[in-house]
């Protein structure tokens, strides 16, 4: 019985040793075009030094210390890692197998529901995406029919290691409004708004009289204690409230409500955001959108258009991109490339999948722009990263260099030669 345990401990110790050694190494990414997405702007023929997982130098006159591991990157492009703005990596394995899904419950739950508690940093689906440059993400809680429209608290994690992956545990609270919220709240947008107001009022009253609540002398509240606690950051305007809305009128309504309660609002989905771009810009609210949403797929998204991102950017609205294919955040680069084809400046599109979402959700003060003092969270690409024919060469996440291997690449290699000598099951 004890033998396997000892073996496991030994392996763990060996792994720890290796990664410590790796940390002591210096890695130099040499002669690349570096889109720092920070104060350094874009640098040509630049070298990045990474020491103990931290970027220590970026520039064209950087001296490479002897003994450094050099990654020749002439003609290559380095960018910050891709941020999966609405992620289910590590909280969903097989979509149709419920037991592998933790991003959504099926019982009554509310804003205290934390997806990150079910996060699996060893997820094969996560690994398949990180080798393509997806380095961190916002784990977004999804609603269920029994649950509150305030669906939960989302967290920012990085995908680079099995320990200490939480970047910001209380990154944002999510509320579903629009058609989905209306259906959940009882069949009317008015009922959804009522539910949200009740929750916010309750959170305020709870804040003002916690003792009363605990002793049972306060009035009846619409939410339980843990949910009321989860909303404290939101009513202080510290924790962003992500409102899932598409229709222009729904966006206008939630902007008003956010002003009334002094909330830090983020709009997600925002198919018709371009129609009220000026109002969103005035309120300094970020819109998280899928730039490829162009079909009137619901009544609330009749005015969907490829121009959404471009028009929001012109109006001065801060944007971040989200995909709608749970298993393919690696295609965020494709979304950004298409946004460029539809008129968005290239660097704005790159920002929308890297530093913008990282900044939006906080906890990334030492990330993700490529600057001295920041954790190395970056990708070396052989060509334009937004191009569909480009795949990542090297990926660094939170200072760790990632092994470029996944279950998918192993399956591919097993079947690459159908006439090989070994039976398939013995090819590993």
């Amino acid at each position: 019985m004890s033998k396997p345990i000892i073996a496991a401990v030994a392996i763990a110790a060996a792994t720890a040793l290796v990664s410590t050694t790796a940390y002591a190494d210096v890695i130099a990414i040499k002669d690349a075009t570096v889109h720092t997405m920070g104060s350094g702007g874009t640098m040509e023929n630049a070298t990045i030094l990474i020491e103990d997982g931290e970027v220590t130098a970026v520039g064209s006159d950087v001296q490479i210390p002897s003994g450094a591991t050099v990654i020749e990157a002439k003609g290559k492009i380095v960018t910050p890692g891709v941020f999966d703005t609405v992620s289910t990596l590590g909280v969903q394995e097989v979509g149709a197998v419920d037991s592998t899904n933790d991003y959504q419950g099926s019982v009554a739950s509310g804003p205290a529901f934390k997806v990150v508690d079910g996060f699996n940093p060893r997820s094969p689906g996560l690994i398949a995406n990180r080798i393509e440059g997806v380095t961190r993400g916002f784990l977004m809680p999804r609603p269920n029919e029994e649950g509150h429209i305030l669906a939960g608290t989302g967290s920012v994690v990085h995908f680079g290691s099995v320990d200490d992956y939480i970047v910001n545990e209380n990154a944002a609270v999510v509320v579903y409004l629009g058609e989905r919220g209306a259906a959940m709240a009882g069949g009317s947008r008015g009922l959804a708004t009522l539910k949200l107001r009740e929750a916010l009022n309750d959170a305020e009253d709870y804040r003002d009289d916690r003792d009363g609540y605990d002793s049972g002398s306060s009035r009846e509240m619409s939410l339980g204690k843990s949910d009321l606690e989860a909303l404290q950051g939101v009513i202080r305007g510290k924790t962003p409230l992500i409102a899932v809305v598409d229709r222009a009128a729904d966006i206008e309504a939630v902007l008003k409500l956010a002003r009334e309660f002094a909330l830090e609002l983020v709009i997600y989905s925002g198919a018709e955001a371009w129609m009220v771009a000026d109002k969103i810009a005035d309120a300094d609210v970020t819109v998280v959108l899928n730039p490829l949403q162009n079909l009137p797929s619901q009544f609330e998204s009749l005015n969907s258009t490829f121009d959404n991102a471009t028009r929001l950017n012109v109006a001065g609205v801060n944007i971040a991109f989200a995909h709608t294919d749970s298993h393919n955040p690696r295609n965020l680069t494709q979304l950004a490339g298409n946004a460029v084809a539809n008129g968005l400046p290239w660097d704005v599109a790159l920002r929308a999948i890297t530093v913008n979402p990282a900044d939006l959700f906080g906890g990334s003060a030492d990330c993700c722009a490529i600057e001295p003092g920041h954790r190395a969270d970056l990708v070396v690409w052989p060509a334009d990263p937004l191009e569909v024919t480009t795949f990542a060469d090297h990926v660094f996440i939170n200072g760790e260099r990632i092994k470029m291997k996944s279950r998918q690449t192993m399956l591919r290699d097993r079947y690459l030669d159908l006439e090989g000598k070994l039976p398939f099951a013995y090819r590993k």
Partner: protein
Amino acid sequence: MTVSRFPRALLIGLTVLVVACGDNGKEADKDSAAFSSTYQPAVSRPVLITNAHILIGNGEELMKGSVLMQDGLIAAVGEKIRAPRDTIEIDAKGKWVTPGIIDNHSHLGVYPSPGVNAHSDGNEMSSPVTAEVWVEHSVWPQDPGFAAALAGGITTMQILPGSANLIGGRSVTLKNVPSRTMQGMKFPGAPYGLKMACGENPKRVYGEGKGRAPGTRMGNVAGYRNAWISAQTYQKKLSAFAEGNGEAPDRDLSLETLAGVLNGEILVHNHCYRADEMAVMIDLSKEFGYKISSFHHAVEAYKIADLLAESDTCASMWADWGGFKMEAFDDVRENIPMVAKAGACAIVHSDSAVGIQRLNQEAAKAMAAGQRVGIDFDEAEAISWLTRNPAKSLGIVEKTGSLENGKMADLVIWNTNPFSVYAQAERVYIDGVLTYDRYNPAHQPVSDYVLGHRAENGGAE
């Protein structure tokens, strides 16, 4: 009249019968002419495109070539072409020309936008075998998705029933032309398809969802076999009657379609993910003497690419979708090029109102993924995955799918290499008619549903 029980599809296969029936055969023709195509391309002037990088669709390319479209057909492709006097000439310097893109797996019109319940017309989930339904009777030509797909260069698509049923019904092939009616879009002379589905969906919908067969994969296969046995019996009765023996069987919509498959007139399109299940389905087709034109989704096709090549079965695939269910868990990015490398017919399909707008990008991802592991297909070859090969799977490769003389003038002018994320279709021609022009709103169709809704089109505000 007993003869009116026969649809033409059956008669075509039974030549003896057609000859024997004489006048009665004509009546049968009239009978099956129901729902037939009314599509007539508009009259167009000849168009000569010059100086273009042309991907022909048959594996060849011209770095600087010309295409002449005349009377709705490709009249010439080459370095230098002499055109008739009234030809419209387009200098396509720096641009690329490809055949019109063909998506052989779409649910446009049957799961249209907006996706409300009232529009859910793609799965007749009332019985696991519904060979009697024809998806064309669900198609809503006002689906805004058609115009969106057109802007992505789609000129032809197969609309399929969904995959809830073992046998889901007849498919229809449409030209992507705006029309008030489904008949006005119907691809003239294209054979019908039959949708079949393996694996998780049928057993989930019936076993899990309705507590009836099939509840397992073995139940699925029993279901197909029972259906084919009935079809064989029906077909035998028809043949016997044609030879002057016995009564004609009563007309049966379901068995008519299945007999059409056994006669080779209706092409099987088989939703199937797993390698082992595809191998079972190939055996099933041999048992009953029909051919599977294409597997669809075929996420594990790379594991049995040699079997696909051997049986001349196409695989219609995504570039990178997977993980959403168990049977899609072994997806690899190199699936499409690995199938092509084995000499099988590889197809890029969408199954999506979103994906259909960018099939060129899906092909580009697959091509590049292949190149990473030494499978060196270039653009000239990879374009066939979304032009010639889907045309083959639909039985229309003699008519479209490549830029060869005498084929329909279905083509796309791209602003740059269509295997780039920055590429956009600038002009789309269908049967020689300019059906879409990115820079001219007069050539951008707008569906009734969108009209007056969208702010951009003068509605809403």
